[in-house]
């Protein structure tokens, strides 16, 4: 299962994408510690697999929580390395910005 959590504002759509199939086979779960805002948690999904999710509380505030990492000095484009995506050894985590 691929999950897309995100928001929309005047400049477009932004999403965090988590590929559950890639995430479930990885045992590192480094994203949880890597995120300075505590956006991620490991939870059992509806099909009994343990995967990273964006926590319920964070889903409503992604715009705000992710802005310190992604927004500094105008953001960075695809080359910009975010703590969470850099920490994920499975390549399961992507940001659309």
């Amino acid at each position, binding site marked *: 299962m691929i999950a897309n959590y995100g928001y929309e504002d005047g400049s477009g759509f932004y999403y965090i994408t988590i590929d559950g199939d890639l995430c479930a086979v990885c045992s590192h779960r480094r994203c949880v510690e890597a995120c300075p805002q505590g956006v991620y948690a490991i939870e059992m999904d509806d099909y009994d697999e343990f995967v990273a999710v964006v926590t319920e509380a964070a889903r*409503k505030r992604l715009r*705000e929580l992710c802005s310190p990492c992604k927004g500094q000095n*105008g953001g960075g484009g695809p080359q910009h390395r975010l703590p969470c995506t850099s920490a994920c050894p499975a390549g399961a985590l992507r940001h659309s910005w």
Partner: protein
Amino acid sequence: MLVAGIDVGAKNVHAVLLRDGVPIARVVVASGFDHEGSAGRGLDEAAALAGVRKEDIDRVAATGAGRKALVFAADQPTEIAADARGAFALFPPARTVIDVGADEARAIRLGPGGKVVDFAINEKCAAGAGAFVEAMSRALEMSLEEFARVSLDSTEVIPMNAQCTVFAESEVVSLIHANTPPADIARAVHDAMAGRVSTVVRRIGIEDPVVLGGGTALNAGFVKSLSCALGGVAIQVLGEAPYLGAHGAALIAWDAAQGA
């Protein structure tokens, strides 16, 4: 020489009259549905206040969302240009200018000489603008002034889950039912809005000194929350903050009149 700047916002029209570059009158009138009519009224009142005739105004510049409706305005600078010009005049060292009005929040990064380097706008969402705090103060049946004041007395930080104004209204109502102290609710509302505005500011980066304009700058509770949301940065509230855009527009008219 007499020039005027008019800022036609969604809620209010602000007008500033300058004589030889120095403010001689400031007025605010409600925008209503007829922007041109309200702007004309604002200009009339400003002229009356300064004791001059409207016909003697040499040049008018209009900014704000409703500026296009004003056919008599020789200049129609964007809100960004007007804010930048105004902030530079009021506080020349300013590097980051934040303007939070009733329906929009803007952040502008200024370079040397007041040049606009970068800017970001929160548009089309009431949760990141003054309308949010207004709606919440209504839910608490408080005046905006009272709401701003009590928030400073808050002793406990409570989170606001709802980000959207519509949902936040219901959340505030349930907090009231749960007997949460109004001071803590007001603080939570200001924190939530400051969080939204800080997102806009972070998009352009924060560089000291930071100045704040717009009607919401008069809300000390919000200013405190915004400072926290920006990591404790010092925020200088500009004098006559609600008139920032109008003042900037007037200066643009003044610049143009001198150049002409």
